């Protein structure tokens, strides 16, 4: 399958933060969730893809083309939804769209008007009068109106009510029914991704922890729970992180079957959610 987006060896450093050797790819026709705690580097990755910040090394290819050497062609195929939509505040939505539309050869006014109507956004309303949720809806309407092949969304569901979050997820699932289209969706709300993502990339402290199909991750990762001192964390194969609580040891393993074989009935085993995985890897005590 062709990749909609390929990132390899990406590096960007700021004072006190380094995004280092980030590599992953998004197959066409899939939704990839980019997860990680706040400050992990999700927005930095998306900005590097959009060439909003300069990369120090590495490569970004959008539908096989370098995102800097072929910037206009690559960006024409991207619909970008910012974490904080940055449109001029004192201008009507229809005027913003009229300024943006000429940049996209596949812009569809009928689709745009229909999406605004569906989202309950009056075209003449000024951007500054919109609530946060409505701003996100407008940004999404713009991204969808030019028939983008790759939709990049940076924390689109943060601050949205559950009803619109659900609507958004349904809408994104509909987008990828067209198998040419792909979505990269960064969030720290992992429950959203469990509903729709095909692939998940987890980034922590500027490095990729894993990038794999969601089902494979949920199959292989698991929680090992043992009471008292019956099981030492160091015994657990594929240990990713653990914590001790009043009930005993709770640990995340990256190889649930190996842990089950090794520790046997001394512990109980559960499938880990993406939230568990994110918690233990970013906050749990590291394995020895």
């Amino acid at each position, binding site marked *: 399958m062709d990749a909609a987006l390929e990132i390899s060896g990406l590096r960007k450093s700021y004072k006190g933060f380094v995004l280092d050797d980030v590599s992953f790819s998004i197959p066409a026709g899939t939704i990839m969730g980019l997860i990680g705690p706040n400050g992990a580097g999700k927005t930095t990755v998306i900005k590097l893809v959009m060439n909003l910040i300069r990369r120090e090394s590495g490569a970004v290819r959008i539908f096989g083309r370098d995102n800097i050497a072929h*910037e206009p062609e690559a960006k024409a195929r991207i619909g970008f939804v910012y974490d904080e939509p940055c449109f001029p505040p*004192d201008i009507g939505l229809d005027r913003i769209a*009229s300024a943006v539309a*000429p940049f996209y050869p596949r812009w569809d006014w009928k689709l745009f008007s229909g999406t605004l109507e569906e989202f309950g956004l009056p075209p003449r309303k000024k951007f500054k009068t919109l609530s946060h949720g409505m701003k996100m809806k407008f940004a999404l309407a713009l991204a969808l109106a030019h028939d983008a092949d790759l939709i990049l969304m940076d924390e689109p569901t943060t601050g949205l009510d559950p009803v619109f979050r659900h609507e958004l997820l349904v809408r994104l699932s509909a987008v990828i029914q067209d198998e040419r289209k792909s979505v990269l969706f960064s969030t720290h709300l992992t429950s959203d991704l469990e509903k729709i993502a095909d692939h998940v990339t987890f980034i922590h402290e500027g490095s990729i922890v894993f990038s794999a199909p969601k089902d494979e991750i949920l199959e292989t990762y698991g929680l090992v729970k043992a009471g008292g001192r019956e099981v030492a964390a160091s015994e657990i194969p594929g240990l990713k992180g653990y914590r001790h609580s009043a009930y005993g040891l709770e640990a995340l393993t990256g190889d649930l079957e190996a842990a089950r074989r090794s520790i046997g009935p001394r512990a109980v085993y559960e499938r880990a959610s993406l939230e568990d995985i994110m918690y233990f890897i970013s906050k749990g005590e590291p394995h020895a």
Partner: protein
Amino acid sequence: MHRIMRQDLIFNRNNLLLMLAIMTCVFVYFAGWAEGLSPRAYFLLAAFYVGASMGITLAAREDKHKTAALICSLPVRRSTIVAARFVLTWALMLLTLVYASLLTAVLPFSQIDLIAVVNVKFILVGLLILSAVFSLILPFTIRFGVMGVILFLVAAQVLSVLVLLAFHFFRMENSLFPSPLRMVSRGLRFLLGPSSTVIHMLIIVAIVLAFNAASFFASRALYARRDL
């Protein structure tokens, strides 16, 4: 490039109209009530004012509303964005300067007979002042936003005061050190003086072009390196 210019006009329409209203008030005041203001001074003052205000209007608004991320996420190169902004700002400056000149002819109470001093050399000198102000301010605005303009103006004033103090206290006018300043001073006197030969005008045109080329390439390089 035209799409960026069109977008800038749509996004900044209200602000540009407000600027025009403010400039109209300023020009009307100078034309009707500023005593002792010669037509030359009016024209050069207008050129300076237009260059300073129009030069920062578009970039400052982008800085205020953080719309640079939107513009740079569109399918266009940053160098095209800078080129479009350069061309659009020049077009707006020229239109505003023509407007300022026409006001003196149209206003019944105008004390300035600008028509009497309209000649090629004087217009070129006006463009030179416009270029000098705009060309210096633009790279600062593009790199540092409104704060860059403020820093630039403060730094220019501090530098001027220091030069004046140095001249006053150390009698530097007689030393070898200020010879570059004397050269600049002589150059300005030559450019603004009565001579208007073809060579004289070609020199002014060359300086205008040099100012703009340097400013454009510096702005382009700065914008390309800007992280948003």
